[in-house]
């Protein structure tokens, strides 16, 4: 018995002394809260650029790392490093950063516009392979270079990373803009799925969301404006909540106001000789927030408002769908899955072709239901 105990103690001591191989204390780590990927072509006369194959681009990795040292003025450290691949850029960090670089606590990734147009698969691969990176990380595109976004100084938040996280966390509850997580982005690898992402832009000293990026698989194909982004969210069925203005001139009364609505959608699909037919029913439910007319609202009045909104949204959505079918030619509203649900094997090959969405017949119906009018009538 004593011998067994002795043996256990010896093993313990040996293990401790040989090394707690993975033990690295928290304060010796440098963990980025936000990261941005960009590309630039080599050949600019920057001597610190790593050697690259001619024709290939170099990636830039910008990281936002909280400054752990006590009594410093800078709460965060934002640095950019270049490399042949992202992992190579990480390796180059080691020349200037004294702490071990840990990727697991990253919460936001911003992709520069140029990189997004190149096709993200080779660059995002490291994020997929790293077992410590959560799939709940927010993913967005930058208008211009992602580096500029991270380097913008921010006043009322501790750092830009926290600000962006807070921005994306509630965005779908404030307006109809999608907040994409990394896991959603990865689903592009399934047939028929194309991700979307919000676009961040630096305007002077502020960072705002200026639109929505549409991807074809892993390559960005179009930047939508904020209004188009609204239509996208409605058609794509992402659960959101937003104020929606409406206005209509009627014979005597002039309706103008806004509603606060949640959206949902239903899609019906069938296939006949005319091809693939989709009927998207967008449902908006909510309450009346603002109205310009003074008289108390009657039931007919409410229904008129609902009809106004329905018409308005329908027109907007149809415009969007036209644009999608003519210009983008990519299923960014996530309806191919309903076609796949009926006949997966037959359609798998062709569903990602532009012809599929170009020739699909898509109808939009809108239903608005206003539950109440707030505190006043």
């Amino acid at each position, binding site marked *: 018995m004593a011998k067994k105990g002795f043996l256990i103690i010896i093993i313990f001591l040996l*293990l401790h002394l040989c090394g707690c*191989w*993975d033990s690295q204390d928290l304060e010796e780590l440098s963990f980025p809260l936000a990261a941005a990927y960009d590309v630039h072509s080599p050949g600019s006369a920057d001597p610190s650029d790593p050697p690259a194959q001619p024709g290939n681009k170099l990636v830039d990795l910008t990281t936002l790392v909280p400054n752990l040292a006590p009594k410093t003025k800078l709460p965060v450290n934002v640095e950019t490093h270049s490399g042949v691949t992202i992992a190579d850029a990480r390796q180059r960090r080691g020349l200037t950063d004294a702490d071990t670089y840990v990727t697991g606590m990253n919460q936001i990734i911003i992709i520069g516009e140029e990189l997004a147009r190149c096709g993200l698969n080779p660059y995002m691969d490291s994020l*997929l392979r790293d*077992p*410590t*990176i*959560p*799939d*709940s990380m927010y993913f967005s595109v930058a208008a211009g270079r992602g580096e500029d976004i991270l380097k913008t100084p921010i006043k009322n938040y501790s750092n830009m990373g926290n600000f962006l996280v807070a921005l994306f966390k509630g965005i779908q509850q404030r307006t109809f803009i999608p907040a994409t*997580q990394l*896991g*959603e982005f*990865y*689903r592009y*690898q*399934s*047939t028929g*799925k194309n991700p979307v992402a919000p676009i961040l832009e630096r305007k002077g000293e502020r960072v705002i969301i200026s639109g929505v990026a549409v991807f074809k698989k892993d390559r960005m194909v179009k930047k939508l404006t904020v209004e188009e982004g609204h239509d996208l969210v409605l058609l794509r069925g992402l659960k959101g909540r937003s104020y929606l203005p409406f206005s209509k001139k009627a014979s005597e009364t002039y309706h103008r106001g806004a509603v606060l609505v949640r959206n949902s959608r239903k899609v019906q699909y069938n296939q006949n000789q005319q091809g693939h037919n989709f009927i998207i029913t967008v449902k908006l439910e909510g309450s009346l927030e603002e109205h310009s007319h003074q008289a108390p609202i009657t039931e007919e009045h409410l229904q008129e408002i609902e009809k106004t909104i329905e018409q308005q949204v329908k027109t907007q959505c149809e415009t969007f769908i036209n644009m999608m079918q003519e210009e983008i030619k990519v299923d960014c509203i996530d309806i191919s*899955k*309903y076609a*796949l*649900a*009926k*006949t*997966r*094997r037959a359609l798998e090959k062709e569903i990602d072709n532009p012809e599929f969405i170009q020739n699909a017949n898509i109808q939009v119906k809108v239903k608005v239901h206003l539950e109440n009018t707030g505190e006043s009538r």
Partner: protein
Amino acid sequence: MNNTDTITSKQLIFIIIGAQIGIGIFSLPRLVSAEAHQDAWLAVLLGALVPLLILIIIERLGRRMPESSFVGMNHLLFGRWLGSAMVFLFVVYAVFFQSTVVRLFTEITIAFLLPRTPAPVVTLMVVLGAVYIINKGARVVARVNEVLFWIILPLLFIVMAPLVNADYTEILPVGEAGVKAVAQGVLSSTNAYAGMEVLLVFYFLVKSKGEIIKAGILGLGWTTLAYLIVTLVCLLVWGSETIQVINWPMLTLLKTIKFPVLERPELFLLAVWMGVGIRPTMNMGFAAAYSLSEVLHVERDKYFHRVVIFIAVLIYILALLPPNLIVAFKWAQYAGYTSLLAGLLYPLLMLVIAVIRGKEAPSG
């Protein structure tokens, strides 16, 4: 048969669950959906039929010879030398299977938790843990299985949390993959469902033989439920194509959501991590050690631990052999196919010979 080795039929439920649900559950969705695409969940459901068949065969076999242990049965049916050889083969199968399990467990541990720790050290700790438990006898093994089951049960609920991102169209249209694809999916699931063959050894140790079938079905039912839930959730959240690029879908599944306070739900899984991965090793390892010690006429009280250590060393060495993860996955697939041999054909053979030799089941 020692007093420390008898178990009740209720404990058998947990032993069966523990022998089957191990690290196989992590890669199961990927392996099955590679063949069966969106009908992977059907394949998983149908895959339960194989262990069910094994259960019935073994129970029939045991009923004919209730007084014999596994080794005794072999001796009775095949004669002394051939019988001992068959037992040795069974032990070899168990050691091989467990070495793949231990290897994959070590791989996942190193990938997610301990990237810089050398693999032999992690494997050593896993094997040492198994040795400690197996040494204590079947009763303690059964009790540990039971406790671990209840502790790991909340994980099943946590796994369902990502359903907020689920897309039900991923599993439609049902059945379109075709019978052949689903059958191949069933074949891929054999690795995960393996483990029912420990019943060959544990049959003898259960006190009330009449309840074994009920216990077996209950245990198998839980396993199937767990596998079904995990496969379904993975399919619904990602779709059968995206799963193909993920090595361990169930682990990655836990990373897609954020909980309000603790943020990362993997914390729960990792805190009981060892309990999840070691269950098949301890159950099958015990079965192997017990049979081996019986066939070598080793005295149970004094020298059982030497047999256990011997088997542990074998598992350790075999677990370190594959040079990389891809080869290790391949070995695991082979082990799954071998489990069909050991679990289906072997007891079937024994049953046929038992019928031929006229060993009647006792009445009542």
